[in-house]
């Protein structure tokens, strides 16, 4: 997986509100149609990296099956970062797409 991609996916997952670790893993798996296979464990160093950068925060909460769990939440700075990273990502993805498929575009 590309360096930073996981960070971006996590931020994206947290847009809808605070989520706990296992749910983030599930969401990434689900939303990416199981294309992005990662060991679930590698989520945690990434989460802590984001906490350290103050892009997300962590709070106590109760999970759906009524257990105490850590909930991760996007900060204001994280939201700004997500916007910036997303547009950067889009630009790059567009650029890569143009490089990979110029012939088809000409054909159309």
């Amino acid at each position, binding site marked *: 997986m590309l360096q930073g991609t996981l960070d971006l996916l996590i931020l994206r997952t947290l847009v809808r509100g605070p989520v706990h670790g296992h749910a983030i893993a599930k969401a990434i798996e689900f939303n990416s149609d199981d294309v992005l296979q990662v*060991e*679930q464990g590698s989520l*945690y160093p990434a989460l*802590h*990296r984001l906490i350290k950068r103050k892009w997300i925060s962590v709070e106590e909460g109760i*999970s759906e099956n009524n257990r105490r*769990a850590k909930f991760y939440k996007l900060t204001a700075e994280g939201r700004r970062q997500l916007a910036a990273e997303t547009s950067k990502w889009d630009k790059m993805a567009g650029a890569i797409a143009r490089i990979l498929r110029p012939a088809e575009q000409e054909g159309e």
Partner: protein
Amino acid sequence: MKKRERMMKDLEEDIREHIETETQDNIARGMPPEEAHYAAIRKFGNVMRVEEDTRDVWSFVWLEQFGQDIHYAFRMLRKSRGFTAVAVLTLALAIGATTAIFSVVYGVLLQPLPYTDSNRIMSVFEVNSGGTWSRVADPNFDDFRDQSRSFQSIAKYHADIASVSGASEPTRTTVAAVSPGFLKVLGVQPILGRDFGAGDAKKGAGPTVLVSYGYWRQYLGSSRDLAQSHLKIDGGLFSIVGVLPSGFRFPADVDLWLPADLDGENPSRTSHNYSVVGRLRDGTTVQQANLDISAIARRIHDTSSEQGDYLLKDGIVVPLQDAITGKARSSLLLLLGAVGFLLLVACANVANLLLAQASVRERELAIRSALGAARGRLVRQYFTEAFLLALLGGSLGVLGAFWGLAGLVALAPENLPRLESVSINIPVLVFALVLSTAVAAGLGAFIAARATSGELRKGLVEGGRGQAGLQGSQRVGRVIVAAQIAITLVLVVGAGLFGRSLMKVLEVNPGFRVDKIVTMDVSLPWVDDPKAKAGQAIFFSNLIDRLKQIPGVRKVGATSGLPMDGGLPDGMFLLMTQNEIPKTTDGFGPLLQQKERIGNADFCVATDGYFQVLEIPLIRGRIFDGRDGANSPHVAVISESLARERWPNQDPIGHTIEFGNMDGDLRLLTIVGIVGDTHEYGLDAPPRPTVYVDLLQRPHAAITLTMLSDADMRSVASAARGILQNLNPEVAAKFQTFSQVYSTSLGSRRFNVILIGFFGITALLLATAGVFGVMAYSVSRRTREIGVRVALGAAPAGILRMILGQGLRTIFIGVAIGITASLALTRTVQSLLFGVTATDPVTFGGVTLLLVGAALLACYIPARRATKVDPMVALRHE
């Protein structure tokens, strides 16, 4: 740090929660609970690595891990103290020796001279017909100065010993005669008083002198009022005009500087009396200066009326630093190379130790790896340990170098220039640090590559017997030992060649006796007036008569140049008879063109006692005696080699020669005797043809008296000093034993032999230890196998042969490589050898035998131990 603790605790909970949730999901999907749990863990990955990675997020990873590594490395080194001690001491020895030698190389060769922009200061030489360089004659210097465009300033100088009085006590001091601009070339200004001005150098000017800081402190009481002090130098009265800065002593050992040519220049273009230094103009390169000087020199050669072998053929410009250190360079670089070899041998030993250590630790590594330690981390661990070893060794080595350097400097030959600037200074310490780091990096890379290659988990699989990689590391160990033997062989061959050279030199019969001779250097002022000269002859004659009265002194002689003590002037003499003498010196020119008339010899002033004291044998005729008074016909005694070369198949006795160009006395010399040859310029230099003249007929100002004495030097010296004081209180003397002078002449050879011998022996010991270590280790690792062989009926002799055979193969490969390398390398030191060729079979054979013998012994002990293996014990082993 607290925050991190909290975050890590949270993380543990989080992970537990995560896996629990995943397990529940799996159960919900219909898995049995146990399987559901394992599936969750598999999906999660390595919990410990996740925790470690997360911890890294919260820490200064690099620093913290480094701390851990160091901590761990210390623990490992403490745990195996024997290994640590041997490795650290080996490295300390090698790094210390290399640092000490480097400090000499740095101080002598690399450190810039202590003058402003010292790389712009050049030496200028004449190149004579034989291609060798010589000093510069006065008119040639004037042409260089006036016609060259390459130098800001250029000056000539000449240093000599003089008797100086007028200060707190009379001294024999080295005095330099320098032309104006000398200080400007070197970029030095007086700290007190003034530099020489144009007026000081004019012919007939009032004599002035500059003094060194040391002389000013010691003999002039640091007096700031220079006008009060005058110095009597060689009889002339000089007013002190300035004091030069502390530490400035150029040329070497000079304490007083006077203007040159106060009595006018020597008009001859073939009297090479002055050294020349110049400071390059900004933007001028050494090459440009060379072209410039060379063109002037060749013009002089083409146009001068003084044609002949002594006239310059060309000129050359070299940086002053190279001119000063040129002779020492090859010898010092040789030593640096030798100590570098020693360093390699030592590193090889440590590498082998590390290798053995690593295979012992294979299990530990396998466990750490299985527990999730990344390979990079293990590699870093090895590097940390190597660095710790090298830095410990390096620090200890530098301490040793401080101590060793004192010995090194004491041992160094007297003719090694700039010895006073040798010390353990910042650049040397930086060198030691860089060297230690390089050693650490090398060892670390080697051991990390060896130890972490291959499948680490094998260490666990093979029942923890630690057999994994055994074959491989044994092979590498043997390669290292072979390399060690090869390098050691080169070193010991080098030591052997130098040692045999020294022995051959000592076998040379010097042609004179050395022991029981006290020498006394006395110089009187240089004078030209024949009457004053005659007075000096009488003075020395009186001195000799009185010295003979000293109790214990049996015979006394005198000479203008003691063998092995700086050499004699040489020149061309003419064979002629009384009625052929030309009226003026110009008339000698055409005679010098007649090859059959000229000869070349050293010119030595001596007394009859000189031959007796030094026991230089009379071959034929007679030496000087009572017949040879100041006014009787002047006589000469010649050396055997001169008789052989100049008068082959003839009897030179009775021939007359003109050699007045040496001392200004044109009276002919009649050859009355032939004496044995002496090795004036060292035992390793061929004897020079020499003409001896009688001190009483041809007075000379600077004389060395030789006293054959049964009494010890100190009592003779104090008695002689008293006698001299009585005769002339303004003259100082320097005393030595002739053995000291003689032994000094062997200094550089002895220096090389002692150092390279020391390196060679140390390398030999290290290599032997290396062979022993690898063999003993191999035997101990193979105890089980040997036990099985014995159990199956192998005879002890067979086991011995097997182990020895294995060792021998390694040894012979090493020796073969070593001999090849030696043959290639020793050729480069041929010029430093004497009496042996660079491929001396005796040395090569002897060294090979010695090395093979030592290595075999080192193999034999472990091999013997292998034959003693008890199969029962061996099979229960481990």
